[in-house]
């Protein structure tokens, strides 16, 4: 599995340039990470405008604190941690305002509105086959949006971004075992959402 940070070395040079005050260094950092950060925010929040605002907040926070970035983790990891916190704050705010987006299925239970994908044939019912199609991304995003936000960000960080259980436990401030059990239940829910025969 590709670890986060594996692609971060060239960008770390950009961080050094930014610290030296090189013009355009921060813009280069944003260009290098904006897709990843925005995608994470969009999948977490399931709302384009919210995702735009959250991504902007992430980079603005990074601009403020980049001088204190010690490089112990890759810059992408650092940015995604900021994004996770920002998105969770927004989700909590939504809940407090009773502004729920799509109705959540029962946590890790059966989806009330059925699976998000209906396979066309017997041979095509396996998710790995479906991923090959151009629609697979949208299907997965739709399935992710139906997960409980408290578990969705763990799935995104673990299975999409490649964070370790320990890193997620550190971010969530919960034991590693709790992270594993939540992830397991979220994956099982994803499987049920993606496969009508699961």
């Amino acid at each position, binding site marked *: *599995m590709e670890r986060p940070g594996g692609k971060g070395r060239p960008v770390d040079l950009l961080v050094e340039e930014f610290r030296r005050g090189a013009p355009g260094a*921060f*813009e280069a950092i*944003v*260009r290098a990470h*904006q*897709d*990843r*950060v*925005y*995608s*994470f925010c*969009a999948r977490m929040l399931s709302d*384009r405008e919210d995702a*735009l605002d959250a*991504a*902007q907040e992430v*980079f*603005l926070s990074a*601009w*403020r604190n980049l001088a204190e970035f010690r490089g112990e983790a890759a810059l992408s990891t650092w940015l995604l941690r900021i994004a996770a916190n920002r998105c969770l704050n927004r989700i909590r705010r939504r809940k407090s305002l009773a502004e729920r987006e799509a109705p959540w299925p029962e946590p890790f239970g059966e989806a009330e509105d059925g699976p998000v994908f209906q396979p066309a044939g017997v041979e095509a019912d*396996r*998710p*790995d086959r*479906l*991923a090959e199609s151009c629609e*697979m*991304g949208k299907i*997965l*995003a739709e399935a992710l949006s139906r997960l409980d936000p408290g578990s969705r960000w763990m*799935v995104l960080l673990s*299975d*999409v971004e*490649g964070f370790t259980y320990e890193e997620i436990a550190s971010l969530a401030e919960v034991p590693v075992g709790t992270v*594993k059990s939540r*992830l*397991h239940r979220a*994956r*099982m829910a*994803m*499987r049920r959402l*993606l*496969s009508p*025969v*699961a």
Partner: protein
Amino acid sequence: MDAMDCRLARDLLTDYQDGALDAADAAALAAHLRGCGECADCDGSLLAVREALRGLPPDPAPPELLPGILAAVEGEDRDVRTDPRPGRADATRPFLSRYRLPLEAAAAVLLFASVYWYQRTSTPPGHPPSGLSSGVSSEAGKASPSRTMTAKEGADELPPPAARLPRGNPKTAKKKEAPAPAKPRTWTAADLPSVPAILASTGSERIVPFAPFPGTAADPARPGAPAFGKRESAEAEGGADSRLSRSFSPPPTRLLRPLPYGRDIVVDVKPESREGAEERIAGAAMRLGGIFERFDRGTGEAAPGPAGTVRVILPEVAAARFLEEVGRIGTIPPEGMPAATDLPAGPRPGTVAYAVRIRVR
């Protein structure tokens, strides 16, 4: 026989796929998966979900994201530059703004030092140079036409700054003037300016009147020169004396001028004895080692009534003798000599001052 039920098997699938199960549990789960089609299918689909998520490509960020971020950063950067909080904008504040307070403090100290240096080194116009230092500043030399030392000579033999200061230590100053004995001072009493005391510089030495020798009279032609300075002028003409400048230098301030003091004595004189009564009283004081400070001749007439006043200062031990002498000149009525007149009331300890008021009877 399969010892694991499907519920437990599905709970262990994640750890099984992560390789986190111990060998026994992994073997038991593998055996269950071989015998249970539904759990095997669940295992396969779960693995497929994880692999599909892992390969999920990021969505491209909207084109408006980057300009929005850069605009927000620029705005915040502008706010930080104008933020007055300490440490927030120090790096971007202008130089004068950052060091305004230290610069103001330094300017104040410099101004104070300049004024202090000016007061210590400058000599007021017309003020004779101190007798303690023959090598005075050239400016003082130019201001005095009778001075024999030229400005160039003065510049050549300009002593160190410490010796040029009027307030220098007399011992040190005398040592400094030793190398220039061939240039005698030419200051005389006639050269003394009649500068009012109030115009005198505070840099001059303090003037303390002292008693002249008996028989020395004041020079009435020079009202600005005190009588007790005459002896010093004579000494100065005969040779350099460090007391010259002390005696001829005007008092530095009004506060050091003689203040009204002493006791009032009234002496009744006959009209035929009125003429010269002031001189006789003053002479009596000076014969006893005192000085007369001032005549106030009043009307100067011999008509009955107040005629004049003579102020004298004399040693305390000569007070009784002086009163006796005054009693010979005229008659001191009982009300004219209070019981306290013999108490010391002079300008300094050991002296007594009297204001003898002449009344024609």
